[in-house]
């Protein structure tokens, strides 16, 4: 193929000519055999500039173009588009940065000029080895995969599902509802009743655009926004194990939380005394309307212990103070003479009506005792004696029943899913959001979002908000009919040189490389590869190369740059 290279030196207004002798550059470059034409232009990224470039390509029948201007991050795409519009393959284009890398940092004009010339020569020699890569268009998949059938997952599914957008809702246990479904009532002062959760579950079940798989887990998943592939494995108790492969456009992680194992701190005496129960067990008691001691009698005094596991985990679980108030109100409302004490480290009452809820509890006679930690609990006759410390002063109290509120911890599946999707976890093991302030439901993996307690302790309204946020992100980016162009500058493995050692696989962040056991080689999935090049660097034999960054291309640049 005849190679007609056009080189255009942009002045970028006054920016570049102040420090670089543009005419000298044009002169030097024009003496190169490989160059068909070299011209200068005042501002190439302007509309006139782009028009000029397009005309030049057509007039001079250029096959390759080099533009010496600003940073590729600024205008590489701009000029590539022009090339494409002019009928040239946009990948036979190279931008050379003579602004940031020459004009803006070298005070001496002669030095800056000679460096600019060197760089442009390097760019020209590089572009000679470019391949005319072809873009492919993929129609995006606008469906969503929601992992976790608790209230957050259900809400996300409901807000997303529609006739043009299916939702796959995958739940590990055999029923929907998660932790919220186990509550006796959602805080009455927040205006909701438990039946709201049950209603949501029914809505999800009746929605024909939501495909629910219970007793199921996601076994494999890879891809990116608009283009995910996943394998869902179902193991129903009375039924056959089956695997389902689905294609989807986005993933929402709503895997919720587990509770701190009270056995980890023997001071709480959990499981040592049958009248010491966890908050969840107490919810159960309320649900079945049977608040009784193990001896069948009704308790005359109840101690509610806050903050179990807070010191161990290093964070406040946010919701326990409120539900302990709920317990206190319930006890006082249903057992008028009952003595209720609450042992707390700090009180967390951030919402609009929380303060008055607390004041009301006090009015009902609930006693609030501040403590640093529970030292130990032991049986004292029929009662439980709690020894606690506050500011080095130890004190004791006795109660018939003790309810301990455990911290919220990441659910057991979090780390496994994080590995599957290459997602970071924070110090406490919760999923880490992309940016705590500016992007709180996104992850570094485009197309994967998180909502609810999978991100950290929060209450139901907050979970609903986050679920709406994830839906919002998906609704605005996965528009039916839109097409995506996956990365063109991907990696490629030469089969005859690959020995299947899978070193590249182990360093691929995107799961874009898989091993073919039949051929004994690794294979790059070009639809998922992002062209980061980690694999290229990791292969000792050079069997894998990057399509737009081949050794030859890079070496040509370096050779000139070092001359």
């Amino acid at each position, binding site marked *: 193929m005849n190679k007609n290279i056009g080189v255009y030196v942009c002045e970028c207004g006054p920016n570049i000519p102040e420090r670089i002798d543009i005419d000298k550059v044009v002169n030097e470059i024009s003496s190169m055999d490989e160059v068909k034409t070299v011209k200068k232009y005042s501002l190439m990224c302007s509309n006139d500039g782009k028009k000029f470039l397009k005309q030049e390509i057509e007039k001079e029948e250029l096959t390759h173009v080099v533009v010496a201007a600003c940073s590729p991050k600024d205008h590489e795409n701009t000029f590539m588009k022009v090339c494409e519009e002019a009928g040239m393959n946009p990948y036979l284009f190279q931008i050379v940065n003579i602004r940031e890398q020459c004009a803006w940092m070298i005070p001496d004009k002669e030095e800056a000029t000679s460096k600019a010339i060197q760089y442009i020569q390097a760019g020209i020699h590089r572009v000679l080895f470019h391949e005319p890569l072809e873009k492919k268009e993929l129609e995006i998949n606008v469906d969503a995969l929601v992992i976790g059938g608790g209230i957050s997952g259900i809400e996300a599914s409901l807000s997303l599902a529609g006739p043009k957008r299916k939702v796959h809702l995958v739940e590990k246990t055999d029923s929907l509802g998660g932790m919220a479904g186990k509550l006796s009532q959602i805080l009455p002062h927040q205006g909701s009743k438990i039946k709201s959760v049950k209603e949501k579950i029914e809505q999800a079940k009746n929605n024909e655009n939501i495909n629910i798989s219970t007793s199921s887990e996601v076994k494999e998943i890879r891809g990116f926004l608009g283009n995910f592939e996943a394998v869902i494995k179902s193991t129903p108790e009375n039924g056959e194990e089956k695997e389902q492969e689905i294609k989807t456009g986005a993933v929402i992680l709503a895997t919720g939380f587990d509770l701190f194992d009270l056995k980890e701190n023997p001071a709480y005496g959990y499981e040592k005394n049958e009248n010491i129960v966890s908050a969840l067990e107490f919810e159960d008691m309320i649900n079945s309307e049977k608040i009784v001691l193990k001896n069948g009698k009704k308790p005359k005094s109840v101690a509610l212990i806050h903050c179990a596991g807070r010191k161990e985990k290093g964070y406040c679980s946010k919701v326990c103070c409120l539900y302990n108030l709920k317990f206190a109100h319930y006890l006082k409302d249903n057992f008028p003479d009952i003595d209720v004490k609450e042992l707390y480290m700090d009180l967390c009452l951030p919402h609009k009506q929380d303060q008055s809820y607390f004041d009301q509890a006090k009015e009902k006679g609930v006693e609030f005792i501040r403590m640093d930690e529970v030292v130990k609990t032991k049986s004292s006759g029929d009662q439980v004696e709690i020894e606690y410390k506050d500011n080095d002063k130890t004190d004791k109290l006795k109660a018939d029943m003790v309810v301990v509120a455990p911290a919220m911890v990441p659910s057991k599946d979090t780390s496994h899913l994080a590995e599957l999707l290459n997602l970071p976890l924070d110090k406490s093991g919760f999923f880490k959001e992309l940016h705590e302030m500016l992007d709180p439901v996104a992850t570094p993996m485009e197309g994967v979002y998180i909502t609810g307690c999978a991100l950290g302790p929060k209450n139901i309204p907050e979970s609903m908000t986050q679920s709406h946020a994830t839906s919002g992100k998906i609704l605005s980016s996965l528009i039916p009919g839109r097409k995506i162009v996956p990365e063109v500058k991907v990696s490629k493995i030469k089969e*005859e*040189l690959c*020995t*299947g*050692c899978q*070193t590249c696989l182990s360093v691929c962040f995107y799961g874009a490389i898989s*091993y073919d056991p039949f051929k004994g080689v690794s294979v790059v999935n070009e639809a998922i590869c992002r062209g980061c090049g980690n694999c290229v660097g990791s292969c000792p034999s*050079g*069997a894998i190369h990057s399509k737009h960054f081949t050794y030859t291309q890079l070496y040509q640049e370096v050779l000139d740059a070092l001359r």
Partner: protein
Amino acid sequence: MNNNQKETKINPEKGKALSSSKGIREEILNIFKKALADDIFDAVMIPAKVPNTDAYSWILLQDESLFEMADPLPPVMAVQGGRALSSFSKNGELDLKIAALMRPCEIRAAVELFKLHQINLNHITLISIDCPGATPLTDYMNDPKKLAETYKKISEKWEVSESLRPACQNCHRFSLIDGTAADLHIGLLGKNDKVTLIPISSKGNEILEKLGYEPTDSLEEWKSNREKLLKEKIKNREKFIKEWQEKINKTDGFFNELNKCINCHNCMNACPICYCQQCYFDSQNITFKPETYLQKSKEKGALRFPLNTMLFHIGRMSHMVLSCVSCGACEDACPVSIPVGRLFSMVGDQTQKEFDYIPGMNREEPLPLQDFKEEEFCEVETPNECEEKVTEEAK
């Protein structure tokens, strides 16, 4: 780790001692004959002398009559066992039960290759053996009868003789019972007529039981003989490392050792770890136009041919030295007697220490370059925060 390798390591306190009047070779071969006959293995990979020649090779045998040419500890290590094992076991699933009897460095090389998916250990039982070393391949090929005799003498006495390969003189991993590399170990240290079978993994234990060799004998005597020799060999190795560090730390020390190199790549081809189909340094990636070569020549006044000789060594080192098992196959293969095995072994030793990694010792331990640890090399990544940590550790 793939291949479902979840062998549990057992701490060998007991073994099975077998005394043979016919000698150690016969005793060992009998064990394998029995195992083949009892269908415990379908085939055995063992060193063998090629009939009508003085040459040694490996044979994968199924027919008992072929044991005639077998020799568990030949005077040379012609082809590194890890390489031999990989040559037939990497392209698909084996449907045969195979036992491979190899020297400890060969076992460790096989484990490294397993981690690199070049050996499928699914149906392979690795059997290691106490190794007295081997003689240099060139010396042996120049006078096979003489070297065979010399070897017989020094190996019976477990002498760390200068007639052994430098790699063997400096080797302290001659008896593999630590780690999860081998399934079974054949102990020879001690009286010349005793062979002690020591189970290392549960698979090894199973095999002994199937053979009717319950491991009920004490290992005290063997362990104490091993300790004695180990002490001597550790001292040797430390001396060798120190000597070579000094040699290389001199100006151009590394390059001086490679002055004679003709870039034949025999070292790479003999190396069990070098598994690439085509070495990067043989690829077209590093071929350039004549003017580029002339330019390079003008920069220093001369350009050595063959090209990229030093690059090849440094590159190969950076690619494989973390898995180097110091077997010395490279040095045996070098036509111009460059001490390449000693060079790589010393550098390997030092770099492996940095990663706290012993190649081939444990099957489950991931390769350092494929294992990401969040906190690693703080001296390089966060030197300011690390200063305190380093001084603490130094204390």
